[in-house]
């Protein structure tokens, strides 16, 4: 009989465990854990709950299956822990020994195919009325539809169709550490509109792309990601709160509950799946939570939806891995992280993508990962490796945050490798002038940045008039265009059309000033003009 030999926090060693495979789920004293190392019949297990009271000699039950996520219509609008167990139906204080699983529930099923027809794998056989306006699709394996149930209410685990001899239910399970398959990846760049001007105009992210948000504490990572979760033009948002604050999640939930989705008219909460593993919840479930979140995102991608996965913060995930590696006695590599840190980060971001699904639809998973560098040091390993694997980087700056300039995105320290292609997309799709406006703003900001360095040394008044006006222009762009208030109802979200119009307004004001300077008007007079209308344009709908 397999039994525990050693307990050290979340690390448990087990002996006489025959026939088990790596990453298989086991149960010890009723608590779940995952096999992370095997030597003969001895296994190292990482436990997903507080292990107080576990002792040598306890029996170990092997489940013979890897950790997998229960995927179903209950996900939309719900709040779950790192193992995708519902939190909204759990008690106020989480006792590891009394955690309810996902209740099956009953859902309204509408068939979409007729019996007797052959279908490709990934074809929806029916749709389910889940929370909100996004229909939940039941996808089938390939084969001939043998039987499909008529419209009606069915338990989530009941067979609603038989395809190619396989029973299809509204829910399914998938091992979280394995990507759900797709037919092919699509290369054509299409922007994800975030509703944040500085990002959409200067540092865009593509659908199916990956962006990282590094920033020290207090720089507004979470507020920025919350804004994107609320306003981006995705069909489904998966928000993984990984090792972060409980109050923040309460705020995310309260924020989503109170807001109407501008695109569908439904509640924003109902297009959102929240996976919450706050920093006081068991550490190793934090490690699993980014994978369960990713699996949920891929599941909705396969229904043909554009999905955004927000992971706040990937650093906590990396730290959970480091902590466990240290307990398991693995030799430390960079700053104590295990040697596979870079490959684990790469593999995670690689699951992002815009694809043709098995069923022939187009869907995407865009990954936005927060990075919390210790001491604000952007050369630390998690930040450094993440920068290698993302196409878009939004670096947050402490000085901007101290000056209460939000979003505190430092344009100089950030990049988007898709900027050109995505600007061209806007130009083509009915917003001519987008690429030109973006390029002009970027060039002015860069010039103003260079001049600011000089001005610090010699004083702004020592600069020639035109240069002083460029400095003024940089200030107008930052204040009137890039700065955006998450708290202002008129300004929290900015459509691409308005972003372009605002950029036009501010650029026109700058051009006026430059023209005045060219005719010999002293910079002092230009600086003392009233720019209130330009600066307030973003507040007036």
């Amino acid at each position: 009989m397999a039994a525990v030999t050693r307990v050290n926090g979340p690390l448990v060693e087990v002996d006489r465990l025959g026939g088990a495979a790596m990453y298989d789920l086991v149960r010890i004293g009723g608590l779940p854990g995952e096999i992370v190392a095997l030597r003969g019949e001895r296994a190292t297990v990482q436990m997903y709950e507080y292990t107080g009271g576990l002792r040598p000699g306890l029996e170990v039950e092997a489940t013979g299956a890897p950790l997998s996520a229960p995927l179903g219509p209950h996900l939309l609008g719900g709040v779950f822990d790192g193992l995708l167990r519902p939190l909204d139906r759990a008690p106020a204080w989480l006792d590891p020994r009394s955690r309810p699983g996902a209740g099956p529930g009953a859902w309204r099923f509408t068939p979409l195919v007729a019996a007797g027809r052959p279908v490709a794998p990934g074809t929806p056989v029916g749709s389910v009325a889940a929370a909100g306006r996004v229909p939940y699709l039941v996808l089938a394996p390939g084969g001939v539809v043998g039987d499909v149930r008529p419209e009606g209410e069915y338990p989530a685990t009941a067979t609603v169709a038989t395809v190619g001899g396989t029973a299809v239910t509204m829910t399914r399970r998938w091992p979280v550490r394995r990507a759900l398959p797709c037919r092919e990846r699509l290369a054509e760049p299409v922007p994800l509109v975030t509703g944040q001007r500085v990002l959409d105009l200067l540092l865009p992210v593509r659908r199916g792309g990956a962006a990282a948000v590094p920033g020290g504490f207090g720089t507004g990572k979470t507020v920025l990601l919350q804004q994107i979760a609320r306003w981006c033009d995705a069909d489904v948002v998966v928000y993984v709160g990984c090792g972060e604050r409980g109050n923040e999640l309460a705020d995310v939930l309260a924020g989503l509950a109170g807001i109407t989705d501008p695109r569908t008219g439904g509640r924003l909460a109902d297009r959102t799946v929240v996976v919450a593993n706050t920093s006081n919840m068991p550490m190793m479930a934090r490690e699993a939570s980014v994978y369960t979140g990713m699996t949920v995102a891929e599941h909705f991608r396969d229904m043909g939806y554009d999905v955004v996965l927000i992971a706040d913060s990937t650093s906590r995930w990396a730290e959970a891995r480091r902590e466990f590696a240290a307990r398991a006695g693995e030799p430390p590599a960079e700053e104590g992280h295990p040697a596979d840190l870079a490959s684990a980060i790469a593999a995670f971001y690689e699951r992002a993508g815009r694809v043709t699904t098995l069923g022939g639809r187009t869907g995407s998973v865009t990954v936005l990962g927060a990075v919390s560098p210790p001491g604000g040091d952007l050369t630390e390993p998690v930040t450094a490796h993440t920068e290698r694997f993302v196409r878009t980087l939004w670096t947050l700056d402490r000085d901007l945050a101290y000056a209460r300039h939000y979003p505190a995105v430092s344009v100089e320290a950030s990049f988007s490798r898709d900027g050109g292609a995505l600007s061209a997309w806007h130009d083509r799709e009915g917003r001519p002038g987008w690429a030109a406006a973006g390029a002009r703003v970027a060039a002015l900001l860069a010039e103003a940045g260079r001049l600011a360095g000089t001005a610090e040394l010699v004083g702004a008044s020592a600069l020639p008039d035109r240069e002083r006006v460029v400095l003024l222009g940089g200030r107008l762009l930052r204040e009137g265009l890039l700065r955006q208030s998450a708290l202002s109802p008129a300004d929290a979200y900015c459509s691409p059309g308005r972003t372009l119009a605002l950029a036009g307004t501010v650029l026109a004001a700058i051009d006026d000033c430059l023209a005045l300077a060219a005719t010999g008007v002293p910079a002092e007079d230009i600086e003392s003009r009233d720019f209130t209308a330009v600066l307030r344009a973003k507040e007036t709908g």
Partner: protein
Amino acid sequence: MIELEYTDVAELRGPLAVVRGVAGVGWDEFAVIRLPGGGTRHGLVLEVDRDLALVQVLEGTAGLAPGRIGVTFSGAPFRVPVGPGWLGRVCDGLGDPLDGGPPVFGTATAPAGGLPLNPAWRLPPADPIITGVSVIDALTTLVRGQKIAIFAAPGLPHLDLAAQIAAQAHAAGEPFGVVFAAMGLTHADASGVRDALEARTAAGELVLLLNLAGDPVIERVLTPRIALTVAEHLAFGLGRHVLVVLADMTGYCEALREVSAARSEVPARRAYPGYLYSDLASIYERCGRVRGRPGSVTLLPVLTMPGGDITHPVPDLTGYITEGQIVLSSEISVYPPVDPLASLSRLMRGGVGAGRTRPEHADLAAQLIAALARAARARELAEFVGADALGPADRRHLDLADAFARDLVAQRRDESRSLEETFTRAWRVLSVLPRADLAMLGAAALDAHHRPAAPEPGPQEPDGIGTGHREPR
């Protein structure tokens, strides 16, 4: 249950004891160590490996001799008695009385580690705690259910400030209580804290747990957890708003590092253990508000930044977990030396405004910060080009910064200011600037409170009308 006593102690090393031949002992169990002379010490199981149990001895291993001590295991994690009986008491770091009173029994017990609060049950922090300290109430308001840290370089009066807040804070008439846990304080510091809190202790509104610099170091691992367990019950069981002050968390982290080093664990930054973030989070996250329960726990960890370095692992990880920080700076010459630009209460929006403090509070704080930021830039500029070369706007902002330090920040250590007084002072500071410089404030608020001392440029108004209070020259 028959309690087995184990006497085969294989090893004693630092704060650790290895007990051999144990059976059925679980991880994180509480242990009692019996000394030959009749005394007892206490321990926690850090690891069990077949028949070996690794125990950290809270009172240290000095004087323990293998073969002459007996260890019994309780079969459960350490539990704390909870109840209103704690209020008004002064105890040591393990909760044993220092005030000559009887042991605290409580109405029930709860595990000191606590259970994780389900995030789906949390309510976002709301409503203020008024500290009576102007600069904090005005600019970094404490919000019920929030955790916000006080950071200070060595030598600054952070303990005085923490004690002053603990002595003065209130929740506008709702039931309130304070739990003050001291970890590693010197005798002098501790007696200062005791004096400052004496009245509140006597009033039965405060619990004081004192682990001093000379007390066993490892005991500090439990002190904040005992404080929080007591506070959670006062808040969520008895409906009080409880402020928990943990001073000094650097002392706590040193105890953690000592245990880690004794276990030869792989060290992370500055030799602190790799699990420091998780461990701190297990303390700091025990605050908040819970749906359907009236009370709240607000957490104020106080910590010394070794070498004044905010990127040191303890302040850095704390900053990542807490919802804001109050930073003390040696460059500010008044008490309390709060650096307004480096300080931030992230949840302030939820705690201030109409019906809570004052309608214009958020705008007023933002305006003051913006003006002080401009003053800081002007001061830097003045160092390069000389103060004479500054424009009139920059000079006005330097005047504002002076008025801010003199009229709003500077305060006696025993002075508790009402919200009314704080706002009167804040408006007096803002009135140094003309209305045109105060774009972040609404017209209604400016009409009601803005009283510039000097007439603004433009048509002169007759004396006494519309110009408000004037300072005698």
